[in-house]
């Protein structure tokens, strides 16, 4: 018997079901930690999403008012715990801005090297976990296999695999051990071909494209209005990256580095020619584009790490001496944002001239990125909610602080 497929939206009107509130989280694998979303659903269609946060609130700002800046470094690790190195760097630079301190050349290149490795590791988790959200398990394993190697390298450099406290105010706690650069080089050489595997598994996978193309559209205006940053902002086609557009103390770190901001210009991404073309079903600002920006940033970071290794080897002298644990801060206040893997991570430090800050404020990139979810999920299907939240790549440790 031949049946005609009707437009599901028509049925929705005819047989109107009662509205139902569905709790997604706080313990739900695809909410990336302890995020709770309350969905107002009408059948399969979500009419409203209300995010509830705070389940991982650990009073990071209050703790900052009781510790000296160097003692606070381990707490920054626990903000975005998937990119501890980048959090260390953000805080260290903020304090250095207040102290008017510049790290030596060697320390600067070491920081770029470590921060960009951190970005690769973080994007690998984002990518692998996004596959999980959409119901495919293998990319997760492929991604974690490579991330594991980066963590091994980090462990060799600082002794920790997750909470590094490696980059610190004034430089780094230690120089890289002997033979580290060769291992890093070997890792990059074998890692670059693996990126193509990821493109086969996800980027160009038909099911993946169907699940992400045109879903969760974020217009550039809305992205700016909601204070989105990082790949979420650039996925909407806004050409903004603090590594180029940030404050001098941060951009000077990347002064003599060659890199192009990953963002679509006139329908093309910078590295378009080497990588799979953008599928025609996708629209700028959808989940697919946010994912693609992350994938291309991995390639970009590999390039930056290579440059950093070269410059690090060529530079002489010290990698930077950490300041004293109880060094007095000059009175004043500074605000500084850095480009962490998930977006612009900001620290606001108010000092009254003692060793312990008067006030520490943390501006989290994911906090602002997540606040746009209600807009993105309005009118989508329940199954699209994990696709949208996953594409924002949120880390609750950073949102709740």
């Amino acid at each position, binding site marked *: 018997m031949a049946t005609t497929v009707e437009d599901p939206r028509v049925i929705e009107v005819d047989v109107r079901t009662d509205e139902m509130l569905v709790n997604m989280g706080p313990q739900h694998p695809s909410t990336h930690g302890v995020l709770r979303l309350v969905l107002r659903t009408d059948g399969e269609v979500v009419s409203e999403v209300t995010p509830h946060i705070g389940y991982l609130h650990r009073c990071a700002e209050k703790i900052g008012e009781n510790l000296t800046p160097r003692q606070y470094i381990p707490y920054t690790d626990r903000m975005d715990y998937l990119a501890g190195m980048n959090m260390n760097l953000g805080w260290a630079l903020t304090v250095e801005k207040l102290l008017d301190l510049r790290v030596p050349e060697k320390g600067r290149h070491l920081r770029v090297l470590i921060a960009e490795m951190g970005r690769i590791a973080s994007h690998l988790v984002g990518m692998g976990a996004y596959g999980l959200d959409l119901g495919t398990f293998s990319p997760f394993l492929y991604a974690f296999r490579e991330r594991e190697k980066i963590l091994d390298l980090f462990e060799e450099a600082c002794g920790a695999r997750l909470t590094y406290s490696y980059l610190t105010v004034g430089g780094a706690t230690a120089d890289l051990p002997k033979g580290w650069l060769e291992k890093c080089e070997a890792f990059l050489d074998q890692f670059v071909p693996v990126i193509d595997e990821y493109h086969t598994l996800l980027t160009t996978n038909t099911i993946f494209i169907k699940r992400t193309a045109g879903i969760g559209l974020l217009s550039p205006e809305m992205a700016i209005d909601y204070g989105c940053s990082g790949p979420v902002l650039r996925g909407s086609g806004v050409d903004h990256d603090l590594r180029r*557009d940030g404050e001098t103390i941060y951009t000077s770190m990347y002064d003599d580095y060659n890199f192009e901001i990953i963002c679509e210009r006139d329908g093309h991404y910078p590295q378009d020619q080497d990588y799979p073309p953008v599928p025609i079903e996708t629209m700028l600002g959808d989940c697919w584009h946010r994912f693609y920006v992350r994938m291309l940033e991995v390639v970009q970071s590999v390039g930056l790490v290579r440059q950093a290794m070269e410059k690090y080897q060529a530079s002489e002298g010290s990698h930077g001496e950490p300041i004293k644990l109880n060094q007095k801060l000059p009175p004043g206040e500074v605000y500084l944002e850095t480009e962490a893997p998930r977006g612009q991570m900001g620290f606001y430090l108010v000092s009254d001239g003692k060793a312990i800050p*008067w*006030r520490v404020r943390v501006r989290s990139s994911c906090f602002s990125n997540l606040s746009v979810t209600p807009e993105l999920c309005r009118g989508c299907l329940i199954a699209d909610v994990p696709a949208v939240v996953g594409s924002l790549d949120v880390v609750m440790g950073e949102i709740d602080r």
Partner: protein
Amino acid sequence: MEFQAIAERLQERLGDAIVAVESEAIDPWIEVAPARLMEVATALRDDPAWLFDYLHCISGVDLLETDPKKAAKTEWEPHLQVVYHLSSIRLKHRLVLKVHLPRWKEDQEGELPELASVASLWNTANWHEREVYDLCGVRFTNHPNLRRILCPEDWVGYPLRKDYEMPLEYHGIRGR
């Protein structure tokens, strides 16, 4: 646009809405009269010479010296500050706005000071203002949904105020 130019133009246009300008600081800031915040913020966002389209962060700072000996020596009266970090993605300049508020409305302890919400200008302010309300105790008027955001809804007190004391007990959990 340079900070000096922004400050001068702002003073020219809105006169006494600008209470103070500090251009010597590492991050120069402008202090705005609380009642005129909306006016200033709207001008900053919409004026084609400024176009401050991106609100980074709203922070609450409690200025209260709890030690009576030190309090006698401080140069400032106890007050709250709400700090806005703005920038323009298109024009690539930055600005810091400050608003000084009393710690309690009309000095009545427990009555939160009020400030106009800028959530209608920048949507990101919605969550940021909720956080300032939650942790520092500032009531934002005309806010679409002013609820606690990080602390539980039945939490008592404003943890980032300097005179805050941890509760002894919360739902059977020992506090201190």
